């Protein structure tokens, strides 16, 4: 229960060995002071024991971040104070947060979701998770046999410097946007995955397996490289509300889909309602490669997230399925971007949003077809469901076509839960709340059926929780 805020790098003395990030015994802790500057970055880099190139990468990114003006589009960021945030919290510090400190409503939700005790503590940022450590090691052993690398990104920097150097920031450069710059300067944790040519990973790789406290940090950095003809499904996040004492989550996810590979990246996020969730996710898909984003956003105060696919060579395909649930005091500004940079590339965007109790959801989409990229197809479907008159939904689609020989379709629908639908279900014995919940669950079914089973079940239960007390 040590309060580590006053600890400094001098007290800690040396950087700690970092393996898998499990810190279940008592170890010195570190929490940087509030705010970000070169000194904090240097401290962080020292503690991590990073090679110089990564330290320099961070410092360069920090310069870019300082030059970027505050993002003005999307949601309201005026309350976000970059100087009032801890940018680096060493793992063992988090693990010493007491269960008693976790807010009651979050504990109650864990109860309702039936999440096991050990997992709850992890989700709440309390304690290490022994079971999943074992699970993770077994999985890593299995993956080793087929040459798949699945590590936290900090470890990958040390163990696979060539791969990391080559691809880190190659998809999302530090200068891409303000939050990519911030992440590049302050990143910690996240996953590194490399799948060798022709290897198909049979089961989803779940960030959950690779649990360690840093994984749940605010500035994760994930890099996935699917070599030629390989296949992998990566799943991150979880449906239980992720408790965070910090108010900013700004991750970067970069994915390289080489020729003929197929990558699916599934995220379900349910941040606590004080969190700004500003994430940059992008994939490059080369010849005949297929990239699929499945992205679910619940919780948070403001989410700005637009997974994108750049189709770089002919035959590439990008599919983005996203869902947002905006409740009281929340703004979900989510969407998708597809760039058809080569001929005969195909994309499909399906976006669904639900707004309730004054929540606001926006779809922000971008479809771009480069000049000369003949024979491209893009299909965008945007469905918004508004549950009451206080709630709001907006659509901001942009379509940039530089080529005549293309086929672009955009459909947008806004609907309310109809009186006829409610009456119909109620006439079969369902209460108004059960009926509304069923309609909402049906609405998001296209996403839920793409989820691994256990996530799908939790997702439906979560919607049920969100809908409780919403009517009558």
């Amino acid at each position, binding site marked *: 229960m040590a309060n580590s805020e006053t600890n400094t790098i001098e007290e800690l003395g040396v950087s700690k060995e970092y393996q898998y990030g499990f810190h279940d015994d008592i170890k010195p802790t570190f929490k940087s002071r509030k705010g970000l500057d070169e000194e904090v970055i240097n401290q962080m880099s020292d503690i991590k024991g990073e090679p110089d190139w990564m330290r320099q990468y961070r410092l360069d990114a920090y310069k870019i971040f300082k030059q970027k003006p505050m993002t003005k589009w999307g949601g309201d960021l005026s309350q976000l104070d970059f100087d009032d945030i801890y940018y680096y919290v060493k793992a063992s510090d988090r693990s010493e947060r007491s269960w008693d400190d976790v807010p009651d409503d979050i504990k109650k939700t864990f109860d309702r979701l039936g999440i096991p005790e050990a997992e709850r503590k992890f989700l709440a940022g309390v304690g290490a998770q022994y079971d999943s450590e074992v699970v993770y090691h077994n999985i890593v052993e299995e993956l080793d046999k087929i040459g798949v690398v699945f590590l936290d990104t900090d470890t990958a920097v040390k163990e696979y410097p060539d791969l990391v150097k080559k691809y880190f920031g190659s998809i999302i450069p530090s200068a891409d946007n303000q939050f990519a710059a911030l992440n590049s300067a302050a990143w910690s944790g996240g996953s590194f995955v490399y799948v060798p040519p022709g290897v198909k990973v049979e089961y989803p790789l779940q960030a959950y397996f690779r649990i360690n406290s840093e994984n749940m940090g605010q500035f994760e950095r994930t890099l996935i490289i699917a070599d030629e003809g390989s296949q992998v499904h990566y799943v991150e996040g979880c449906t239980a509300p992720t408790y965070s004492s910090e108010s900013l989550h700004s991750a970067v996810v970069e994915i390289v889909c080489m020729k003929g590979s197929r990558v699916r990246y599934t995220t379900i996020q349910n941040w606590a309602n004080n969190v700004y969730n500003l994430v940059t996710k992008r994939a490059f898909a080369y010849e005949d490669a297929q990239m699929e984003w499945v992205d679910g956003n619940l919780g948070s105060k403001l989410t700005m997230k637009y997974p994108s696919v750049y189709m770089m060579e002919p035959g590439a395909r990008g599919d983005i399925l996203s869902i947002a649930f905006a409740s009281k005091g929340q703004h979900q500004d989510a969407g998708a971007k597809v760039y058809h940079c080569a001929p005969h590339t195909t994309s499909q965007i399906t976006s669904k949003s639900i707004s309730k109790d004054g929540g606001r959801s926006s779809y922000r989409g971008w479809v771009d077809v480069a000049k000369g990229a003949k024979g491209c197809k893009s299909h965008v479907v945007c469905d918004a469901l508004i549950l009451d008159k206080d709630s709001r939904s907006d659509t901001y689609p942009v379509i940039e076509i530089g080529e005549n020989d293309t086929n672009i379709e955009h459909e947008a629908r806004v609907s309310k839960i109809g009186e006829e639908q409610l009456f119909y279900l109620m006439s079969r014995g369902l209460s108004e709340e*059960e009926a509304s919940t069923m309609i909402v669950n049906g609405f998001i079914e296209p996403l839920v059926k793409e989820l691994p089973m256990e996530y799908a079940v939790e997702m439906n239960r979560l919607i049920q929780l969100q809908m409780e007390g919403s009517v009558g």
Partner: protein
Amino acid sequence: MNSEIIIKDLHISVQEKPIIKGLNLTVKQGEIHALMGPNGSGKSTLANGLMGHPLYDIDSGEVIFNGVDILELEPNERAKLGLFLAFQYPTAIPGVSMANFLRLAVSAVRAKGGNGSGDDGLIPMREFRRELRAKMKQLGIDDSFARRYLNDGFSGGEKKRAEILQLAMLEPQIAILDETDSGLDIDAIRVVGESVSQLIGPELGVLIITHYPRLLDYIRPQFVHILLDGQIVESGGWELTQMLEAEGYDPIRKKYDIEE
């Protein structure tokens, strides 16, 4: 005790326009009643009003079901008491499979008065599946039906069969079939008619609402009522349907001096 629904001097209006104007009718468990009337006579208004549709205003009267005045109850409470409405135009609920929906509905209705039908109160999956499969077989409905989204993209005939399947699963004491034959061709009417006749028995009271006697060939009512301008003007037996088949509604309109 046998269930019965007693409708006393019922007045219903829609958007302040009176449609049902003092209707009296009693349907007992095990009885089959047909309520026939031309378009605009108030048939669907009666059906929706009895089930508690929020857009249908009850101006006066009573509806006593098993001793309870149900007019103040929510539609789901009426369903739990054992009342069922097969819709003329069933609504689509995209993304919700027939099986999931039915499991929740059956669990809710069988829990009766209890309001604790969360996910814990559900009828066990195996038991439910066995029952659903048996009922679908009895009604000649293909297994794949259970996985389809409720009424979503269903043909007219499929929608009506889905209604009958729900009727079979929910096992009400009194069922109102609102124009179950509308929009169906002769073959579809036969299929639906035969399905309904499978479910007829001493446990079920039926009020079939129709303007067209064909469905009644499959489901012989003991009682036939003619609805004109919001009131039942004639009650009798099978002979009334014969008369309507032969002469249409005009002679009755003339008799009661009601304009088309």
